[in-house]
């Protein structure tokens, strides 16, 4: 990384908004950056090729004298030709990955092979070769879990996939074959998980916001880290605030992201990020952003320069994209323009990011109809940002 690369961006400028035909839970760029994948509410994984602007050929200077006339003296001034503006970024949609049921809420990408893993809410886990125009299914397990698979992740070496679900199971799979390697049963629905980058361990969190550390071989829980602020029992509703787990600082720090819930029903919740020293389980700091109207940190992605891009869900119509530097109590950048952010992902080159948001006016007690009288679903615009210093 050059010294220029270590300079933090000060803001992100929205370049384009791309309409989609569905609601998106999670968007991820492939490691090579050519393809954007999205886990969708319509039981599919949608794919787009990112077309980047190419430097344009200089336009011919129509005012320039012809070669034959160059030798002759001319009295007319020669205006320099304006280069045409570069074509904008485009997302060209590819055929989606289909055959899922319910929702697809989670996708994960192999670190060095063209494999995409996706899971649905009816218990199916699949591996696809998704970089080709016509995607191919590598393997499929329609009964990986009994019902809703909440999250999946790929091990840093790409050999294993881990999945967790509402059925209270955490399962390890061979990434190449889909064979089940090991499993452990928890006592609560499991919501989030992450592999440690090097320690041969993973972490998972449950509906009550407790974080558990498990070794991979043998696959068993070895310790727990309590994080009660992520949980609320509202009347008889268990409101789970912890939505994402990530490692940073080469695994020294565990990030627990989500919200501190303050109500059930409507679910008002204050976005919250807890940094935990992984070796000791000690909380390093807790950052709360905004108010209970700002909702959950539904997704975050980390930039190697030392900051995180966070998607805040917000109450209907609210939500924002924020950048947060490790150790800071307040975001150094906040864009309230996208409504109800669901996911955020950096492009591998680090100069772009994409936010999956929600269309405006997505909520309401009425029965809004389109011009042709249809009652339509909401959708998730994909917002492309450029990072600027």
């Amino acid at each position, binding site marked *: 990384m050059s010294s220029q690369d270590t300079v933090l961006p000060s803001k992100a400028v929205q370049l384009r908004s791309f309409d989609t035909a569905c609601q998106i839970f999670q968007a991820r760029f492939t490691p090579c950056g050519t393809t954007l994948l999205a886990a969708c509410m319509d039981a599919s994984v949608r794919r787009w090729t990112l077309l980047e602007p190419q430097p344009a050929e200089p336009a011919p200077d129509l005012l320039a004298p012809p070669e034959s006339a160059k030798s002759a003296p001319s009295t007319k001034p020669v205006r320099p030709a304006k280069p045409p503006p570069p074509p904008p970024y485009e997302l060209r949609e590819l055929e989606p990955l289909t055959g899922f049921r319910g929702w697809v809420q989670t996708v994960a990408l192999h670190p060095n092979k063209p494999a995409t893993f996706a899971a649905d809410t009816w218990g199916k886990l699949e591996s696809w070769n998704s970089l080709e125009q016509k995607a191919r299914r590598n393997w499929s397990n329609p009964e990986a879990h009994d019902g809703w698979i909440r999250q999946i992740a790929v091990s840093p070496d790409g050999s294993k996939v881990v999945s967790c679900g509402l059925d209270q199971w955490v399962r390890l799979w061979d990434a190449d074959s889909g064979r089940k390697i090991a499993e452990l049963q928890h006592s609560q629905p499991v919501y989030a998980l992450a592999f440690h980058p090097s320690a041969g361990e993973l972490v998972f969190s449950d509906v009550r916001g407790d974080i558990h550390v498990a070794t991979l071989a043998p696959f068993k829980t070895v310790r727990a880290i309590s994080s009660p602020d992520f949980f609320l029992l509202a*009347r008889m*509703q268990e409101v789970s605030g912890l939505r994402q787990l990530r490692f940073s600082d080469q695994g020294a720090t565990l990030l627990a992201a989500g919200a501190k819930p303050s109500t059930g029903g409507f*679910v008002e919740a204050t976005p919250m990020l807890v940094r935990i020293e992984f070796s000791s389980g000690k909380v390093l700091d807790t950052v709360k952003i905004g108010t209970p109207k700002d909702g959950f940190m539904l997704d975050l992605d980390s930039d190697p320069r030392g900051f995180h891009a966070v998607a805040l869900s917000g109450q*209907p119509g609210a939500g924002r994209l924020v950048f947060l530097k490790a150790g800071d109590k307040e975001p150094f950048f906040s864009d309230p323009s996208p409504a109800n952010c669901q996911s955020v992902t950096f492009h591998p080159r680090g100069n772009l990011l994409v936010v999956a948001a929600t269309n405006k006016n997505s909520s309401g007690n009425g029965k809004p109809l389109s011009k042709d009288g249809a009652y*339509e*679903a909401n959708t998730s615009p994909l917002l492309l940002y450029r990072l600027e210093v």
Partner: protein
Amino acid sequence: MLCTPFEHTISRRHFLGTAGALAAGGLGGIFSARAAEALKAGNKQVLFVWLDGGMSQLESWDPKPNTLFGGPFRSIPTSVPGTHVSELMPHCAKQMHRLCLVRSLCTKDRDHSSGVARIQRGDPKNRGVPYPFFGSAIAYLLGPTSSNLPPYVVLKEGRGGFRAEDAGFLGPTFGSLAFGDGKPPEDLLRNASLTEAEDQERNALREVFNRRYAQARRPSLTEASTHAFDTAQELMRRSDIFDTSRLPEKDKERYGRSEIGLHMLIARNMLEAGVRFVKVASFGWDTHGDNFNAHASLVPKFDRAFAAILEDLAASGLLQRTLVVAMSEFGRTPRINGHAGRDHWPDAWSIAMAGCGVRAGCVVGATDKLGVSVESTAHDIGSVFHTWYHALGIDSLSHEYKHKGQPLPLAHEEMTPIKEALT
């Protein structure tokens, strides 16, 4: 023709007399008429489960799995072949042969502020007077059972007390007695420091003061407080009904260790003891945000408790004379908002019924494949009220209230019972 207590100065102590005494007459036309109804209805009772805020029909009784608005959950088969419910209701699925689902409700109110009351009052035509909640109407129409226990009891979270406004134009005496957190209202029971004799002495003194107080006031203003006190007297003798320390652990486990589980278990005891109308009110169902995680938490608790009480009422034979209803003020939108929530949807939603007069194991009506609209005959709450009255043996098409000389129909006069839901 029924008339109202506003036209009669009556003693609540007399009101709490037995049905037989009521039938014997001598207390004015109101009691003759009501007693006749009560006799016709037999010893009918009601369990009314109110899921305040709006349970999603798509995550409960009318799932549309794997469709545009269907959400993340699967549907599961039930004890009635061909009928499916959400996977969040495995216990109710096993009780489906006792249930009647109406999947064709289409009501008017999109807001809680108006919907909660109007749905529970049956949303009749506006006659310039507030109609009673269903519980108050039944307390009035059928009175207490021979148990002498209060006719209309609510089990809810938070504070309890006497809620007169439920009764509308019937007057405060037909309001509800609410048990907050499953406990009787504070100071309802005799303080442990008082002996029974001391307590009786105090009661005699209280009655003297009451009579003096009532002389200068309209009867309706004093009846409610007298009614609450009389109710307490009977409840004092039957504290075993709601003493949670006496509930068997096995039952607590079966009903679920949740607020609704505990309240449903107490409700069973109250029905067995003879309370005419028991309402179990559960709050927190207004899931505009995080609807699916919320329903994954809430519905299984309702499912366990509701299935358990159905099973117990059936086993004891009480289900044959008890009308059971589970409902909200509306359903929830098919469209999923940006906060992963569902908003209010009166356009196409469901209720569940069971017990006396109700056709068991049936599904009435249907919504379209996305759950947006009712594609069969749509039913408003007025039809549902007629259905309930008919299930209880009350001919709501022929009888009417009489309020200050004004005849008022029991339910919306332009609507009729849902015949397919009745035996």
